[in-house]
């Protein structure tokens, strides 16, 4: 018993050392865009111990709280990006059409300076995703942009639901079909990869149930791949599926219906506007680009009205970056839906706040300014949908993580003690526009470069 207590103590210690920093902050007299409860002029927001304690007028600052004057400024919930690849060492384990056994959270890079750049765009949470090389990719991780830490565990948003990357269409076909002449070589083949994986998982589930109940005596082979597929069948994991064409989107919804899987958000989903009612009926989310297409054959049939059409048809829609550059101005991307589709201010801002939160299953904690939610806040000098808006301050868990008034040139954390300097310019690692297919071609083929 004593030994047991000791073990518990050690665990408690280990856990406490990973505890995230929680801040106290009072933001005075701003225009507060709550998302869930309208816009409040000249209003204060109080965050204590990392959570929103109070929203109202004339709130007095507690002793230990930092006070920020937001007079003339706009206060909104921290922006959430439902599709990104920042803060990742590795994006694609491209060796198999199904790699549900891997988890990008095992390869988090908290020293990635792209996290700070995202903060400078008001983004407090991103969905660090596996790439799209495989029909079933790896599990993804929802991270909070607590830049400044060495410990990958501090980036994780504890308690966020598990998510996994799926991919339809040309990427898995090219990597596995063209690359190795195995299934999937066609869109039909992609469907069969899903069906086979789910069917195997059902058998796997039964085999283990039989073993655990004593019906069989020899343990089945333990498989991380099948464990994850089984958890999807059990509704424990939200699928985020790379997709473009309407026919394939319908196909995957059919497959999921056959296996009783409900939680899915389609990513990119450029032809989503063609099947918006069907998506709404299924309860599937859609995370889109504002106006980006034609980078690949299957992405030509697209429209900048996509987000507006999906939203107005009742699909929970978000706008994502899939890029270390776009992530810095998602508020611009959201504003485009007012030019293309006439969305209201709140509808447009929902695309980068509460809607991605719903798609990631974290809307009970973030995505709007409400008492009890996390103190993740972005402050702008103008309305965030204005072309003149510049982020002023970004707060995560009540801790200021970006402040335009205190924004040093060099925010790198992990400094190579043997780095070489060049005389005339400083070489910082440049972020590729898109890392969906990172690691794929370097590992499997040589000399090809690809997007998406």
């Amino acid at each position, binding site marked *: 018993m004593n030994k047991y207590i000791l073990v518990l103590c*050690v665990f408690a*210690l*280990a856990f406490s*050392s*990973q505890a995230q920093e929680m801040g106290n902050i009072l933001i005075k007299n701003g225009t507060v865009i709550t998302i869930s409860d309208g816009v409040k002029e000249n209003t204060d927001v109080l965050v204590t111990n990392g959570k929103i304690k109070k929203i109202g007028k004339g709130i007095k600052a507690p002793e230990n709280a930092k006070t920020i004057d937001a007079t003339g400024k706009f206060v909104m919930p921290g922006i959430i990006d439902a599709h990104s690849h920042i803060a990742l*060492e*590795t994006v*694609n*384990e*491209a*060796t*198999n*059409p*199904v*790699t549900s*056994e*891997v*988890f*990008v959270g*095992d*390869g*988090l*890079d908290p020293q990635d300076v792209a996290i700070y750049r995202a903060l400078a765009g008001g983004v407090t949470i991103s969905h660090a995703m596996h790439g799209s090389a495989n029909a079933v990719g*790896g599990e993804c991780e929802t991270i909070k942009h607590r830049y400044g830490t*060495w*410990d*990958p*565990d501090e980036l994780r948003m504890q308690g966020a639901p598990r998510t996994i990357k799926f991919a339809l269409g040309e990427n898995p076909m090219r990597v596995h079909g063209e690359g*190795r002449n*195995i299934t999937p070589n066609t869109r039909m083949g992609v469907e069969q990869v899903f069906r086979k994986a789910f069917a195997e998982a059902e058998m796997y589930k039964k085999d283990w149930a039989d073993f655990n109940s004593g019906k069989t*005596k*020899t*343990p089945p*082979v*333990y*498989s*991380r791949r099948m464990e994850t597929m089984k958890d999807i069948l059990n509704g424990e994991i939200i699928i985020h599926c790379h997709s473009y064409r309407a026919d394939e989107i319908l196909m995957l919804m059919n497959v999921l219906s056959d296996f009783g899987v409900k939680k899915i958000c389609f990513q990119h989903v450029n032809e989503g506007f063609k099947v918006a009612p069907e998506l709404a009926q299924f309860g599937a989310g859609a995370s889109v680009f504002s106006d980006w297409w034609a980078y690949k054959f299957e992405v030509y049939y697209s429209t900048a009205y996509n987000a507006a059409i999906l939203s107005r048809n009742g699909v929970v829609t978000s706008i994502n970056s899939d890029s270390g550059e776009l992530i810095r101005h998602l508020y611009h991307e959201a504003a485009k839906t007012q030019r293309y589709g006439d969305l209201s201010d709140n509808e447009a801002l929902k695309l980068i706040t509460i809607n991605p939160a719903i798609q990631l299953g974290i809307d009970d904690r973030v995505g709007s300014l409400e008492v009890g939610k996390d103190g993740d806040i972005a402050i702008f000098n103008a309305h965030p949908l204005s072309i003149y808006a510049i982020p002023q301050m970004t707060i995560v868990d009540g801790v200021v993580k970006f402040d335009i008034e205190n924004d040093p*040139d*060099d925010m*790198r954390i*992990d*400094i*190579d*003690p*043997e*780095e070489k*300097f060049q005389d005339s310019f*400083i070489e910082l690692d440049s972020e590729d526009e898109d890392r969906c297919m990172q*690691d794929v071609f370097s*590992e*499997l083929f040589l000399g090809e470069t690809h997007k998406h």
Partner: protein
Amino acid sequence: MTKSKHFKLELLGLFLCMFFVNIGFAQNSNDAKEVTNTYYIKNAFVVQKPGMVLPNTSVLIKDGLIQSVGPNVEIPFDAKVIDADSMYVYAGFIDACSHAGIKEEEKKDRPRVKNPGNPPKKLAGITPQKTVREAIGEKLDKSMAELRDLGFGFVHVVPRGRMLPGQGSILTTGSGATDETLVKENTSLFTQFKPARGMFPATTIGVMSQFRDLYKNAEYSNTYLKSYNMQPKGLTKPNHSAELGAMFPVVNKQMPVFFYTAKVRDVNRALILNNELGFKMVLTGVRQGWPLMDEIVAGKHSVVLSMHLPEKIEDPEEEKEEDKEDAEKEEKSGEKEEGEKKKEKKKKKKKKEEDPALAMMKAKKKKSHDEYVGQAALFEKKGIAFSLSSLDTKTKEIKPNLLRMVEGGLSEKGALAALTTNPASLLGISNVAGTVEQGKIANIFITDKSFFDKESKIKYVFNDGGLKEFKEKKKKKKGSKGDDVSVIGTWNYTVEVPNDTQTGIMIVDGSDDNLTIRINSADEPEDFVDATNIDLDGNNLTFDINVEGIPYSIDVTLEGTDFEGSVSVAEFGSFPMTGSLKDGPK
């Protein structure tokens, strides 16, 4: 040299082989031609263990064991006495994790596999069943002798490879056959976050998953095997793979996993797996572990730090000094000279100094450098009894880096503990190694000054019962009287082997920094072989030759028109070699 013709040196090898087989002599040291196996180290400072130096103390060694240590040890009649006045005796260092003795793998093309998603385990770098014996193969790599010459007496050797290269064993740094140098076999499982090439696991996240998969399956198979062994009736025969079988001691928490975790993210990954699965773990080859110090302390993890350090950055102070000197020089000579150029130069220099972005980056780089160098001191301060590893560290950098760690705040006592008592206890060999105490294996070494003195040199190394003496290399002084004999020319040589004397000629040509050497045997005067790795350091000449697969290393000291030294022949040992100049340079 053609294959049909026989070179006498090859015969020499065969001959030696017969000789040793006949008398059944267990070869131990490459220089061994000893007449006694009893040694008496007289009147030294004996560093018995970290922090304990015994002055005027003698050590008696017999049959490779420390017989006694004390002020009044009697000298046996058959002992070779080493007068060690003012010298220091240390317990042989212990390298807590290394690939020493194992040849580096040749670079091969990426293997092609039919199904990269499920490749053969071996190609995917998963061979936990591989042993150090297999990894070393027939011939011990010279990296082991290099460690020995630095004072290392024991090495925890792990196979080279990718994710799961195999199991570690503890060896002495002797040059005998693996069987003879083994202290403890298959004591650890070596693991790295090193993905396979173009097949699963092709990424670090794949390695994480694969490790969990193997571990869980090993647990299930192991449990099943146990119940089957208790009552096989009615149960299907167990059929686990060799890979899983090799992991049973790990899942039974008998065998520690030495996890190679150089950088902070690898440390984190290993901690994640360890928290999940609960195996015995040693964080190994750690270069950048301080950011996760709190977790390491809280989890009471065993740590082996790397002896690798980043390139040294000179203190900005020193740079400033240089600038000052420059400025002074300028002042002295400057005034009269045309000012134009000078001014411009000064301007440029000033401009460079004033670039604040670059200055800031340089300061950050220096800070980072200091953190790497100061890591060992920080671990000591936190009370972590760490050991040290030579993984990924160049041999010649080991001592300078140890001294840099001490400069960075690590105590000498702490450094010595990290090289002796800590690894001995980590590896479970405290009863035979780690201190200069009676009954322990006499793998010890003697230095002329304290080891941590920059100028200190090793004078003697005892290893597996043998003694190697390091003679000071006399530097050839150019232009000094009578010493001006070049190595260029044709030399007669004689090698004494048991019951035989070999002779021949050696032709040295070229210039001092670009020598060529051709050598023959008197029995086959027409056949010359070309030497490789020729090095002339002062009057010390070393080179290698290879005769039909058998490597010979020659190490001689030139004294005027004569030379004296030895030739080492692969596993057979080393033999005295002498020579004299036949014809000087034309």
